[in-house]
C-alpha cells in the first residue's frame, strides 16, 4: 500500500487515513496510560507456584457429533474482508451475473426494502471461483511471462485468400461484370494496376462493412503518368475514405504503361463484392 493517488482525490481514502491516524493516537494514549499505571503501582509479591497434582487422564465417551453444516458459499469463503465486507459481494452479484441469481438463495443483507422474497443472487463475481481451481494456470501465466510467450499467437486471423487471377480470367470476369468484351492486353493492364494499387492502398478495418465506394476520374499518359490530379467524381460520403483513395493513386503513380491513354474511372470499394 505504498502507491500514491497521483492526481486523484478520493474521500473514502481520506477518511480511511484519518481514521487510521485517530486510531493510532488513541492506541498510543492507552499504552501510555497503562505504562504510567504500571510504574505508579508497587511491585506485587509473586505467589509461590501451586503444588503440582498428578492427574490420570481417562477417555470419555464420545459426544454425539453435530451434523456438519453446509459449506459456506464460495463467495463468502473467498471474500477476504471482515463480515460486513463479505456480505457486500453478495449484493454485487445481481448486477454481474443475473442468470445465476435464480440458482442460489442467500438472503439479502438489508431486508428493509425487500417486500417479496426472491431467490438470492449468487455473487456475480462468482466467476472468480474458477480461479481457485486453476492454480496451475497461475503457474502457467508466470511461466509465460518469464518465457515471453506471445499470447497474440492465440488469435489466428486467416489471411485473405489470394485469387489466382490469370489475365484471361480477368478478361472473362470483366466481360461477365460489364457485358463488354475487353482485350487481353487491357485485362492484363487492369490486373497489374489493381495489384499495384492494392499493394499501397491502406484500408483499415474501420472501413470494412460500410459499403463505401469512391469514384476517381484520372487522365493517363501512354507511359502511365497521371496528367493532373485525380478528381473525385463520386464520393463515398466519408471524406477520409475518398482522400485515402486519391492518396493511394498519387503514391503508386506512375501506373503501368497503357496502350490507350486518356481518361479512366477508378472505383475504390471498401470491400470486395
Amino acid at each position, binding site marked *: 500500500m505504498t502507491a500514491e493517488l497521483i492526481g486523484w482525490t478520493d474521500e*473514502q481514502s481520506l477518511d480511511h487515513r484519518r481514521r487510521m491516524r485517530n486510531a493510532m493516537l488513541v492506541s498510543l494514549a492507552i499504552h501510555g496510560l497503562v505504562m504510567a499505571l504500571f510504574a505508579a503501582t508497587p511491585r506485587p509479591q509473586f505467589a509461590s507456584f501451586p503444588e503440582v497434582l498428578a492427574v490420570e487422564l481417562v477417555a470419555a465417551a464420545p459426544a454425539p457429533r453435530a451434523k456438519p453444516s453446509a459449506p459456506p458459499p464460495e463467495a463468502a469463503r473467498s471474500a477476504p474482508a471482515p463480515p460486513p465486507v463479505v456480505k457486500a459481494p453478495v449484493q454485487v452479484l445481481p448486477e454481474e*451475473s443475473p442468470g445465476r441469481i435464480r440458482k442460489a438463495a442467500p438472503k*439479502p443483507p438489508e431486508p428493509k426494502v425487500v417486500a417479496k422474497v426472491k431467490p438470492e443472487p449468487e455473487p456475480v463475481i462468482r466467476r472468480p471461483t474458477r480461479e481457485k481451481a486453476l492454480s496451475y*494456470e497461475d503457474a502457467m501465466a508466470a511461466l509465460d511471462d518469464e518465457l515471453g510467450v506471445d499470447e497474440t499467437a492465440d488469435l489466428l486471423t486467416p489471411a485473405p485468400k489470394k485469387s489466382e487471377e490469370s489475365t484471361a480470367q480477368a478478361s472473362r470476369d470483366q466481360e461477365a461484370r460489364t457485358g463488354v468484351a475487353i482485350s487481353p492486353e487491357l485485362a492484363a493492364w487492369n490486373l497489374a494496376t489493381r495489384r499495384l494499387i492494392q499493394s499501397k492502398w491502406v484500408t*483499415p478495418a474501420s472501413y470494412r462493412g460500410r459499403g463505401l465506394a469512391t469514384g476517381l476520374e484520372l487522365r493517363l499518359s501512354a507511359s502511365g503518368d497521371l496528367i493532373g490530379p485525380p478528381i473525385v467524381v463520386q464520393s463515398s460520403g466519408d471524406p477520409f475514405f475518398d482522400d485515402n483513395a486519391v492518396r493511394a493513386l498519387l*503514391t503508386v503513380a506512375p501506373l503501368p504503361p497503357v496502350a490507350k491513354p486518356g481518361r479512366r474511372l*477508378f*472505383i475504390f470499394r*471498401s470491400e470486395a463484392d
Partner: protein
Amino acid sequence: MIRGMKSRSLLVIGSALVLSWMTMNWPCGTAFAQSLENEQGPLPTLEITPGNVRAFRTAVLRFRTIGLPVGEERIATLRKEIERSLAFSSIVLPLEHDAYLASDESASFADKGAIDCDSWKQSGADALVEGELRRDEGRLRADLRVWDIARCKQFKTGRLTADRDDLAQLGRIIADESVEALTGTRGVAATEIAFISDRTGHRELYVAAADGRDQRPATRSNTLKLAPDWLPDGRAILYVAYGALQPGFFLTSRSKDISPGPILAHVMKGLPKYRGRFDPTGEELAMVTSVDGAAEIFRVERRGNGTVRLTNHPAIDISPSWSPDGREIVFVSDRSGAPQLYVMDRDGGNLRRLTFTGAYNASPAWSPDGRWIAYETRVRGQFDIWLIDPSGQINFPIVEHARSDEAPTWSPDGRKIAFSSRRRGRYDLYVMDWNGENLQRLTRRSGANIQPDWGPRMR
C-alpha cells in the same frame, strides 16, 4: 487580295494538318482525342478492392531543440514514445528507421522549404512527423508538423504544451494528432482506462494509460469497489463502494471543481445501488437498484433530482449502457428466463428484445459511433465477446477463446475494445481492435483485474 486569301487558306489547312498530326501522335494529343471518344461512351472503368495493407506508415524525425537544455537521451525518448503510441493505434505504424532514405533530423521551422518527398516516398512513408521542442514560460512546448508524403504538403501544424516534463504523455498526444491527420479520427493513446484490481488485497479502483502503462490507484480505502464509470468529461470516476451499509455511489475526482465522496446518497435512501452509468452529457445516470427484491433500472439527474423508473418487472434488469446519442439504453434482463439484451428508449418506452441466440448474454457496451453493441455471451461454460447491431440483424463473434473474455468497453474512437480475460489463468486486461485483431495484454502478474471502463479523450 486573292493571293492573300489563298495564303490564309493555306495557313488554315496547314494548321489543321499539323493539329491532326499532333492529335494522332503526341501523347497528350492522343489523350485529348481519347477524351473526345470517351465523352461519347462510358469511361473505361477499373474497380479496386482492398488489398492487405491495413496501416499507414509514418516516419518520426528527431525533434530539434530551441534554446532548451534537453539531452540527446530525452529527445530520443520523446521519439520513442511517439513511435510506441503510433504502434498502439495499429492503424498508423512507425516506419522502421532502417528504411529511412533521408535525414532523420527535423528541419528548422524557420526554413519553410519542403522535405525530400521522393526519398520518403521511396522509403515507404505515408506521412512524416517532425517538430521542435522549447521551454515556454516554464512549460514544455512542442511545435509539430505532419506531412502528407503523397501530396508533399503539410497535413497539419500544431503547438502542444505540457505542464510537466512528461515526455510519455507528450509523445502520446503527438501520436494521436498524427493519427487524426491521416484518418480523420484522433487516436486514443493519450486516453486512460479505469478498472478494478485486487492487487493489494482489496478491490480498489485503478487508472492506467490506454496502453497499460502508468497503472496507479485512484482509491485506497480498503473497501470493496466495483463498476467504475467515467464522467464524460474525464474529470471524475463514479464507482460503487461496499461499506458497512448498503452499496452506494462515490466519486473520485482529479478536478477541483468536482467534490469527491458519496453522491446520490439521498436518492432512494436505504436502497442498494449496484451500478451507475452516466449518459453522454454527464448530467444524468442510468442507475441499477433493488426494489421489492428485483433489480430495476432508474434514470436520475446527477444532482439527485428527477428520478424516473425505466423498468418495472419482477425479473432482474441490470447493466445499462447508453447509446451515443443518449436516446436509448441497452440493458440485460432475464425476463425471458435467461439473461438477454434488451433496448429501450431513455424514458423506458419502446422496449424490444435484441438477442435471441445464446443462453446467457450480458455486459453490453454501445460503440461510440452507434453501429455496434459489444457484449459477452456464454459458450460452452465460458464467455466470448460478440458484436450485434442495434437492429439485431447482424450478430457475430469477435473473440473466441477457451477461457472467458468478459466486460467489453469501447475506446472513444470506436476502433478498439478493452476487456478482462482469464486466458492466462487470472483476470487480466486486454485490448484489441474492434474486429478482434492486434490483441495486447495490459496487466501482468498483478492480481485480478476486472471491469475496465475506457475513459474519454482529454484536450
